[in-house]
């Protein structure tokens, strides 16, 4: 067990000491960070969360102690130019909705199935990182759509809802988009390329 003693240090020094130690640690190796100020304690937890490192708070008094094990891959440990579009971790997936209906057949049934799909997605323990809507799929995100509420709740949970701009233009729905953002073909492609799984309902 490694010990990272940050007592007497003020931000950002405790983060820098922690990152230095992480870079030297081997996978699964454990470490304890000792802190003596509240701000650093709070910021360090946010920092570890950003690095996607799970941690445990072992003590909050008199000193604060955070324990963690180094994961196989530490988020953000990339060259600057690779910072965005970081290849995803194994449970990262995106949902791509190509049509306002789920499956092909009776349109009424298709719409009903799509509503049920989005509601189920809300209950899913592992949420997608993004939902892409294209072609008539963009109809699900416009005002008065009966799927709008589910999509808004999914967005509340941190899922990026992205509608195809060309499709909104084609159906003349751009002004009526009511949830999420507008995206382009480049982003649609990039997102699917980077996701480890893509689900098409």
């Amino acid at each position, binding site marked *: 067990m490694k010990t990272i003693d940050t007592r007497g240090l003020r931000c950002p020094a405790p*983060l820098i*000491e922690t*990152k230095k130690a992480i870079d030297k640690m081997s996978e699964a190796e454990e470490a304890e960070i000792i802190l003596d100020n509240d701000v650093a304690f709070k910021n360090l937890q946010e920092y570890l969360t950003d*690095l996607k490192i799970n941690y445990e708070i072992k003590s909050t008094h008199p000193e604060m102690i955070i324990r963690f094990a180094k994961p196989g891959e530490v988020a953000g440990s990339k060259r600057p130019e690779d910072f965005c579009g970081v290849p*995803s971790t194994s449970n990262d997936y995106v949902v791509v909705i190509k049509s306002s209906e789920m499956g092909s057949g009776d349109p009424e049934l298709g719409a009903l199935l799509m509503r049920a799909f989005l509601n189920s997605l809300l209950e899913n323990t592992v949420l997608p990182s993004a939902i892409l809507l294209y072609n008539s799929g963009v109809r699900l995100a416009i005002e008065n759509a009966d799927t709008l509420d589910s999509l808004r709740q999914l967005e509340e949970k941190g899922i*990026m809802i992205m509608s195809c701009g060309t499709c909104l233009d084609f159906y003349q729905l751009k002004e009526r988009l009511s949830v999420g953002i507008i995206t382009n073909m480049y*982003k649609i492609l990039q997102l699917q390329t980077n996701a480890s799984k893509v689900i098409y309902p």
Partner: protein
Amino acid sequence: MKNPDILVDVETHDDAGVYRLNDETALIFTTDFFPPVCSDPYTFGEIAAANSLSDVYAMGGKPLLTLNLTMFPSDKIPLDVLSAIISGAQSKVNESGAFTMGGHTINDYPPKFGLAVVGTTHPDKLVTNAGAKAGQKLILTKPLGNGIILSGKKMDMVTSENYEAALDKMKLLNKTGMELMARYHVRGATDITGFGLLGHLMKLCQASDVSVQIDSASLPALPGVFELLESGCIPGVAFRNWDFVRQECLIASGCSSAHKMLACDAQTSGGLLIAVDADFADQLLADLKASGQHPYAAIIGEVIPSRNKRIYML
């Protein structure tokens, strides 16, 4: 009841207060001061002045009169340091075309310095953070990360070259940025200072009742900033800024924490964030670059209608 000549007050958290004198002229009134951000007093004076003047530029105005606000411990620090701070500030006031009308000094430690500034503009050409409209593009004129560089400098993690580059950007007046945005009839803009890009974006969104989508890969950063972020050199104030905006932000999972914290980094004398009609965005960007003063200027995103969240960052 509010006086109808008060065009901008604290309500919209804008960069300065604005008062209409008559149909031709509105007064822009602002002040800012802070402790030294660097060890060289002349440079500190330049930066403090550029920072104070920036609030007038962000409102689309031209600085007219300034006052020096000085807190200085005459028994602890030699007076030639004070004189260097004031000379540095004066050089920037001269560059802006404004006049120094005096000021006031009190004994205090550590020293603090800044200006009170009065500027003017035509009331119809006023630029506020309430003037952004859906469909417009967002242009940022200076690179982000000077808070990270200053913090890294204290830890001895910054090369002198990168440090100088950061100071140069802090000294740079937003004068050219203001003049160029006026060419394209911009009505929505702000300058990026202590709340970081995301904090000032949030205020702009709230005041304009819009949302924005930001492309994190397009955010301009000072040289050396990503290496510092990678080393964990994230100033505490960036975390505070993140706490301030997090409820209003949706950050895509593919967006790195480095970009998120860069967008939260508190800036000293940061650039202008300009909402410009999409048709003029490329031209304004080209003009900024052609000026030779804003090589880092970039289109960083666009304004969209008001949604669940104020800021979407990809």
